[in-house]
C-alpha cells in the first residue's frame, strides 16, 4: 500500500522508476553498438535471420576476411598516423597562436581574433570546391596531405586556438614574468612555462582534434582515390559486392574494429573526454 510507505521509501521507489525510464531511453544509444558487434560475428545467411544477440556460431573468420577484402591494416594505420600528425600539429600551431592572442600586445590583435572566429561559423562545404582545385594544383591529390593540412588550418585549428587562448588568459601572469626575468625568450616562456601549465587545455584540444581527424569523411572522399591510401571511414563505406550492395557481415566486423578501440579509451577517460567537448562546445 502506497499509504504506508515512508517518505524515504517513496523516494527510493521514485528513483527506481526514474532509473528504469532512463534505461529504456538508453536502448537506442547502446543497442546499435551491441548489435554491431554481434552481427559482425554472424555469417551472411544468419545476419538477417531470427534476431539474436548471441550468434549461433561465432564466425571469427569475418575478421580475417576484412583484411583480405581490402588493405584494411594499411588503412587503419593511415587513419592512426594522420590523426596523430594532425593532433600534434594542431597543438603546436594553435597553442602558439592562442598564446599570442592571450598575452602579447600588438596592433590588430582584436581584428585577427574576429577574423578567425568568423571562419568557425562557415561550413567546410562552402570552401571545399576551391580547396579541391588548390590541392590538385599543388599536386597533392590522392595523398594524405589534404587530410592533414585542411583540418590543421581549418576550423579545427581555430577551435584549438581559442580554447588555448581562453586557458592562457586565466593563467596567472607572474610565473611568465618570472621566466622573463630569468632570461627566457618569448618562445622559451611559452614552451617552458605557459605550456607545462596548460596540460588540461592541451589535453582537451588533443582529444577533440584526434577524434575529428579519426572520423573525417568528406575530405578523404574527395581527395583519396587509391585503396591503400584510404582512411578508416572511407574504408568502412567500401565493403560492397560488385553490384554495390553492402557486404554486411564484413562491413560490421570492420566497423567494430574501427569503433571499439575508441570506445574503450572513451570508457576509461570518459570524464576527461566529456569535459573537453563541453569546453569546446561552450566556445563555439
Amino acid at each position, binding site marked *: 500500500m502506497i499509504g504506508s510507505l515512508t517518505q524515504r521509501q517513496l523516494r527510493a521507489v521514485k528513483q527506481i522508476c526514474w532509473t528504469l525510464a532512463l534505461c529504456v531511453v538508453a536502448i537506442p544509444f547502446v543497442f546499435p553498438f551491441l548489435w554491431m558487434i554481434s552481427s559482425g560475428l554472424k555469417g551472411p545467411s544468419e545476419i538477417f535471420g531470427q534476431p539474436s544477440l548471441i550468434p549461433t556460431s561465432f564466425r571469427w573468420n569475418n575478421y580475417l576476411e576484412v583484411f583480405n577484402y581490402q588493405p584494411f591494416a594499411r588503412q587503419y594505420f593511415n587513419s592512426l598516423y594522420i590523426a596523430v600528425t594532425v593532433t600534434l600539429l594542431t597543438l603546436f600551431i594553435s597553442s602558439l597562436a592562442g598564446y599570442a592572442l592571450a598575452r602579447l600586445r600588438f596592433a590588430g590583435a582584436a581584428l585577427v581574433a574576429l577574423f578567425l572566429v568568423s571562419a568557425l561559423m562557415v561550413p567546410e562545404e562552402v570552401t571545399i570546391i576551391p580547396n579541391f582545385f588548390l590541392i590538385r594544383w599543388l599536386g597533392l591529390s590522392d595523398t594524405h596531405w589534404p587530410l592533414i593540412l585542411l583540418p590543421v588550418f581549418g576550423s579545427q585549428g581555430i577551435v584549438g586556438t581559442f580554447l588555448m587562448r581562453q586557458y592562457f588568459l586565466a593563467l596567472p601572469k607572474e610565473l611568465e614574468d618570472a*621566466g622573463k626575468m630569468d632570461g627566457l625568450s618569448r618562445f622559451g616562456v611559452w614552451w617552458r612555462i605557459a605550456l607545462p601549465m596548460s596540460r588540461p587545455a592541451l589535453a582537451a584540444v588533443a582529444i577533440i582534434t584526434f577524434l575529428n581527424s579519426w572520423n573525417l569523411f568528406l575530405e578523404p572522399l574527395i581527395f583519396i582515390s587509391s585503396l591503400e591510401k584510404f582512411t578508416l571511414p572511407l574504408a568502412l563505406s567500401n565493403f560492397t559486392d560488385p553490384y554495390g550492395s553492402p557486404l554486411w557481415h564484413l562491413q560490421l566486423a570492420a566497423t567494430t574494429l574501427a569503433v571499439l578501440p575508441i570506445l574503450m579509451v572513451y570508457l576509461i577517460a570518459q570524464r576527461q573526454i566529456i569535459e573537453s567537448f563541453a569546453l569546446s562546445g561552450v566556445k563555439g
Partner: protein
Amino acid sequence: MSSLTLRNLKKRFGRVDVIRGVTLDVADGEFVVFVGPSGCGKSTLLRMISGLEDVTDGELRIGNRVVNEVQPAKRGVAMVFQSYALYPHLNVRDNMGFGLKVRKVPAAERQQRVSEAAALLKLDALLDRFPRELSGGQRQRVAIGRAIVGHPDVFLFDEPLSNLDAELRVHMRSEIAALHKRLGNTMIYVTHDQVEAMTLADKIVVLRDGRIEQVGSPRELYEQPDNIFVAQFIGSPKMNILPAGSAAGFGAQPAGAVSVGVRPEHLSLVAPEKGQIGGKVVISEYTGASSLLHIRLDSGETCLVVVDGDAPEADMKVGLLAGTDNLHHFDTDGMALRKSRLLM
C-alpha cells in the same frame, strides 16, 4: 655601479596615463620603498624598472646605462613577486637555478651559487622539495633565493609579504632588512604596509595617481610632510586635519594657513578647563597598549587621539593639548607651510 635614475618617466595603457612623469634618483645600495593608495601605479613603476612593461616616455637608467629598450633579463635586476611565482614543476633547487641555467652558467658554478643562497636563507634542507610542499614563508624565501643567485645589481620587490600572516610578516621583514645589510644591493620595495615602509626604508617614495607626492626618509615624511596627502598617508591612525579656525587654540599660525594638522599620538588629554581646545569623547576604543578616542570638538569637527593608560569614558568632556613643534600648517592647496618650524 647600481644606482638608478628615473627622468620624467611616463606610462600609458591605451588612453589611460598611469605614470605621469616620475623623476627619482636612487643611490647605490639604497633601500627605497614605494607606497601609495591602491591603483596609484606602484606596481607599474616597478615593472617598468624591471622591463616587464615598456617605457612610454622619459629615461630610465641603471648605473650608467639607459635601459629603456633593454630586455628584462639584461638589466641586471631581479624581481620578487607577490605570488612568489615559483615554477610548480621544478623543485627548490631547480627553481633557484633556473635563471642561471637559461643563461648557460656552468653546472658547477650554478650548484655553488644555489648552495650559497640556500645557506644564506636557511633553505638547505628544503632543496629537493617542490613549491607545493612548502609553507608560505618558505616559498617566499625561495623566491628571494631565486633573485639572489643571479647576483643582480638591483632587487625589486612587489608586495612580497602581503600573502603571509601577520606574525610571519614581521619575521620576514627583519630577514629582508638583514639581507639588505648583508648584500648591500640597491633594493626597491613596493608595499601597502606602513610599518614595513617605515622600518625597512632608507627612503620612502609616496605616489599618488602616477605622480610622486614626496620623497624622503621615514623620519622626514613623518615629521615634515610636504602636503596633506602625505601627512595623512604616513602614520596610523592618520593625522587630524582641522580648519585653521577650529585649531586656533593650539597657538599662533603662519600667514596663509587654512588648515592645521596634528597627529593623534601628539595630542594629550587634560581636564576640560586646562585644554587648549575642548571637546567631548564620542567613542573610546581600547586597543590594549593604548586607547583610540574619537572626540567631537566644541567647534564641531571630529578628532582622533591616542592615549596610553587610562582613557576617559564616552560622553566625558575633555581638554586637548598639542606641542607647537607637533603642529603642521597647510595652505589652500594643501601644501605645507614650514614657517611654523622657523618660529621655534
